[in-house]
């Protein structure tokens, strides 16, 4: 998935260029989606500059962001293209990591910790496939990677920095609609192997802020939760149904509660080795 990003300001583009420096160009030079960051009113380019999100697919009435959060605006706009426009893959709002050709998908509400867990697992020898979207190919059932900047929020920022002292990060974006945000640049392996899909092997529904616990889920509960985590399940029609029922029937799913990152990592590793 490639994007073309245009902006009324230089700064967001410069940040994207720096943070996505090692990424390949879109195949044939033709990106899948166009994103635009623009000033809704001409004077908003200079006077309290506000970035409006535009592109092939837009949400009308989306609130603009201050220019200082231009990088966030760019990431949001790209995610929006995927959420609204993706029709090749079944799109799950989930993070994904891979080991030995098999993938763990982690999905949950905002704040569940899916980005943090993916980043931390990435620090422990797993390949980061993505922290926002997992792309399931209806034809093969394989998960395709979408390893974009990992969006870390609030307390997770320091947790991940401690675990990955060598990693590159974007600027601290303070006071965004989602609190403080800092982006982690995926490591070289995640970028180099982004074209390599993986077999989904475990689906996790993590929940942060509770005593460590885990439980299995019935297939119908998994089905409902995954359709809620997908932005294009219905739009894909029978292909979406095929991909989803395959996941639900073939991939074990667990809900895990965790009080802190270490405990979550231990839970994931335990579940993984029991597969």
């Amino acid at each position, binding site marked *: 998935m490639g994007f073309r990003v245009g902006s009324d300001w230089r700064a967001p583009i410069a940040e994207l260029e720096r943070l996505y420096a090692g990424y390949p160009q879109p195949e044939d030079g033709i990106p899948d989606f166009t994103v635009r960051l623009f000033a809704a009113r001409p004077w908003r380019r200079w006077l309290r500059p506000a970035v409006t999100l535009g592109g092939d697919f837009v*949400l*009308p*009435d*989306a*609130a603009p962001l201050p220019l200082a959060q231009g990088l966030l605006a760019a990431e949001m706009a790209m995610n929006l293209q995927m*959420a*609204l426009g993706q029709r090749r893959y079944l799109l799950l709002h989930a993070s994904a990591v891979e080991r030995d050709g098999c993938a763990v998908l982690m999905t949950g509400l*905002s704040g569940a910790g899916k980005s943090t867990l993916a980043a931390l697992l990435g620090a422990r020898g797993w390949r980061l496939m993505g922290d926002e979207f997992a792309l399931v190919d209806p034809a093969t059932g394989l998960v395709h990677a979408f390893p974009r900047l990992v969006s870390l929020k609030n307390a997770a920022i320091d947790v991940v920095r401690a675990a990955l002292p060598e990693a590159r990060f974007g600027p601290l974006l303070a006071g965004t*609609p989602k609190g403080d945000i800092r982006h982690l640049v995926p490591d070289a392996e995640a970028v180099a192997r982004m074209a390599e899909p993986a077999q989904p092997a475990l689906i996790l529904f993590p929940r942060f802020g509770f005593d460590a616990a885990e439980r299995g889920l019935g297939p119908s509960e998994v089905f*409902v939760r995954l*359709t809620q985590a*997908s*932005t*294009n*399940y*219905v*739009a894909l029609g029978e292909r979406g149904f095929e991909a989803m*029922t395959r996941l639900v029937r073939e991939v074990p799913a667990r809900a895990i509660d965790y009080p802190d990152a270490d405990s979550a990592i231990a839970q994931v590793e335990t579940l993984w080795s029991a597969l």
Partner: protein
Amino acid sequence: MTDQSSDQPGEERGGTTRRRALMLGAVGASAVVSIRPALAQTQASVINCEIPVPDAGRAGSYIAADGSIVPAGTPGAFPPASLAFKGEDVKTALAGGQLPGTTYEQNQAYVKYIRRLQSGTSGFTCFASLQMPRG
């Protein structure tokens, strides 16, 4: 077409004629859950969407007590809101709360304006999404 053979446990099993119990359920109960199309207006985007009062095409106009748009300076009407209202604020106001930075009468007028928003007017999608709580 059945993807998996649908066995009916209990139904004439082992040659007995004992019938399987079946409950039709209460009138108010539900035996069907339909998977809804994902709306563009996800929860997060609703909180992040906004409604200008009035819309940009008529910026500067005043809002009369009945919510209609009137020329600037009309006596008894309210000046435009200086900032667009956030989805969350409007949600609260529609539930009987007050829009930030408004007087009681001003709030009433603005809420009436918002309720009258037409498809195609800026703010309408935000407003419409607030009207459709997700299950």
